[in-house]
């Protein structure tokens, strides 16, 4: 083939450009330590990297959510522990005053004062705050849930926290359930009622149900007999009372304690004895609530473990997709460098001599 001068020059030019751009590309990879610096470097992988990043950020947020929910739940658990402790103490006292061998009118009066303190403690526990939020107020975290009379000002709301893509965990137990025994199933277990709505239709349904529930609560309130009053008058109706609307078997802890206090004050031995049963129910109600809280803590801990694993997995996946193999890059740089040098050397030889150089 006939070789014109321009061909040689063009060839040198092309070779050098190619080598230099290869080199620049590799150096970029070495500097960023990334194989993918723009989507076109690997379209499929770069879309997957984006998805992995979203996932990772989501997971970090879920971990934050869980930490938040966990502290809320642990605080509730601790409070419920205290509540069950004072209830057990009340039961001890009631037992000791339920017969004439260990109790008389005087000791019952003294004990009544201690029960009053226990009552106050129960109200205090019901009004516990974590940070600026009342723990047992349901959604009404800024309103004090209980007044001294044991009346409830919160609602039945379950504050749901997203712990994973499609799962929500309620981080609170409303005071209406654990303290008033309202809205509990026949088994007396405190459960979060609703799935978190994820569409507007579900939201509207949720709002309707909440309205119905409010109405229900109002009826329950109306149908319940007075919390306080002479023990003798109330005993027959209060005893073994079922929730008149839902049929659930909840116990009002405040009225239970108050009843006991009144029975003690009035030296009503029978009343004290019957209070033992209600106290047992109250204790089991709190214990069951506590076990519900405990199981939620366990659940979020498990989710946490899998999230933390997912965070690592995700990083590994993203790294495999987008990170440069350092050894590969360095060895490629060396290879390209020697190619470039060889090109430069041969190019010099190719361009230099022409016939003119030999005609002297």
């Amino acid at each position, binding site marked *: 083939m006939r070789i*014109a001068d*321009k061909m040689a020059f063009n060839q040198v030019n*092309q070779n050098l450009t190619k080598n230099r751009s290869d080199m620049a590309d590799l150096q970029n990879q070495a500097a960023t330590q990334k194989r993918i610096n723009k989507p*076109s470097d690997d379209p499929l992988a*770069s879309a997957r990297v984006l998805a992995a990043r979203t996932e990772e950020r989501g997971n970090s947020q879920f971990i934050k959510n869980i930490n938040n929910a966990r502290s809320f739940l642990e605080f509730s658990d601790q409070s419920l522990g205290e509540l069950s402790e004072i209830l057990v103490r009340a039961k001890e006292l009631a037992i000791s005053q339920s017969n004439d061998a260990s109790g008389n009118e005087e000791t019952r009066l003294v004990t009544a004062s201690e029960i009053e303190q226990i009552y106050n403690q129960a109200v205090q526990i019901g009004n516990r705050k974590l940070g600026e939020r009342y723990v047992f107020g349901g959604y009404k975290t800024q309103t004090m849930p209980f007044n001294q009379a044991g009346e409830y000002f919160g*609602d039945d*709301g379950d504050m749901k926290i997203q712990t994973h893509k499609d799962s929500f965990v309620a981080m*609170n137990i409303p005071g209406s359930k654990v303290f008033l025994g309202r809205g509990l199933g026949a088994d007396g277990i405190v459960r979060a009622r609703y799935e978190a709505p994820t569409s507007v239709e579900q939201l509207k349904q*949720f709002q309707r149900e909440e309205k119905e529930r409010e109405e229900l609560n109002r009826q329950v309130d109306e149908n319940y007999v007075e919390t306080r009053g002479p023990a003798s008058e109330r005993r027959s109706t209060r005893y073994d009372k079922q929730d008149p609307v839902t049929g659930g078997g909840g116990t009002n802890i405040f009225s239970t304690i108050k009843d006991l206090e009144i029975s003690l004050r009035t030296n009503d031995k029978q009343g004290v004895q019957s209070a033992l049963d209600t106290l047992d129910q109250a204790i089991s109600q709190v214990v069951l609530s506590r076990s519900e809280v405990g199981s939620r803590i366990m659940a979020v801990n498990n989710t946490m473990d899998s999230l933390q694993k997912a965070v690592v997995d995700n990083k590994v996946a993203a790294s495999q997709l987008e990170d440069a193999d350092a050894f590969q890059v360095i060895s490629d740089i060396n290879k390209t460098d020697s190619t470039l040098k060889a090109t430069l050397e041969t190019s010099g030889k190719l361009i230099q001599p*022409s016939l003119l150089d030999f005609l002297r």
Partner: protein
Amino acid sequence: MSKISAMMDTGKRSLMNSQTALQTVGHNIANKSTEGFSRQRVELMSNQPIGEGNLQIGMGARAGVVTRVNNPWLEKQIQKEGMSMGYQDSRADALSRVEQIYNEQNNKGLNQYMTDFFNSFRELSNNPESLASRTLVRESAVAMSKDFGRVVGQLKAVQEDLDGQVKTTVNEINQLTKEIAQLNEKIQMIEVQKTPANDERDRRDLVLKKLGEKIDISWAEGKDGMVTVTAGRTGILVSGIGSSELKAEQTGARDRVEVFFVGTGSPANITDQITGGRIGGALEVRDRVIEDLLNHVDNMAYTLAKEVNKAHIEGFDKNGRPGVLFFEMPEATKGAASVIGVNKTIFNDVGRIAAGAQSGATGDNTVANLISSLQHRQVMDGGTSTLDDYYNTQVGQIGAVVQRAIKSQESQKNVMNQLTNIRESISGVSLDEETTKMIEFQKTYDASARLIKTADEMFDTVLNLKRL
């Protein structure tokens, strides 16, 4: 019998031939680097010999024509491939710029801003009472709206830049067509005298190539040696010694520059006919790729605003007031991404963010949960993909398109290099070769001079006969 004077004459003509040949060698060397130049050769032929009885006496040589060494079919092929090269070049350049808009490898992009937005609602759901988490929601929503605006703005900036490119290219085209018409005229004038217009033809081949890189043309040479050039299907740019102009300007109908053929009648819009060359590439990216992307991002912004608003308006704010629209609702999908923004009421008072489903319950986070779960709901593509999927798919697609564009640009470059090499091997100037020719003709010149000298001496000999 031959004559001394004839000998001298032969020598003289040979001298002149060598000079002509050397001149051509010089022309070749001088044009070694001239783009599109084809090397030239003087074609020498022997003169008519004179019959002297039974002898045929040669009368030396004369220069015939100066021809260029050139393969017209190859030139045509290069011109065609050059058209494709121009198209691939401008397409790949523009697409690489578009790609950068969606590049989140090093910078924060729409994907991350959207994730932040949804995460801020998760944070709000953790603590709906807190003003800090409410402010976070506002900030992330504002940042996301801004990034929607950034994407649209940058896409439009590329479109505008392409508009500018189309305009400049059209001006260049008008210069080139004028030159072709002038060259047509020159070539015809020269060749009517039966002399090949070598340099002019080289130049015209080159200008046609350059024109083809800018816009898709078809051309044919007539019997008179003049070419007719058509752009697209109907735009006759050059016909004989006349040329028509193209015009690029915005019309009332669209805010983008369009290409018009200015013939004798009223200007005709030929934008749709242009599918090749740099303009073709620019138009393809501007009107198809970017328009498509704009639709996608608008779609995303509109759906996002619609879904968030739909949920938000059902909720209740921190003080129990019913929810307002969260985003200013764009009127239509078209242009949604450039107008999406946080509702003024919310912007001014983050307490108006409706986190709860019920009035008077500050801890209610049901609506915040609902909005955050929008991220994983299939709201795009008629309920088959999530916002994330939709966006990430687009990024993957752009990456793939750019990758393909760069690959075809490279392979087209290889084709061009190969063809240019073949052209150079035929028409290119080799210094070695020219030097050899130079020496050859120099020797011939020397020898011819020696012949004249010998003839001269012979004359002397004859003139001095008497004196001897």
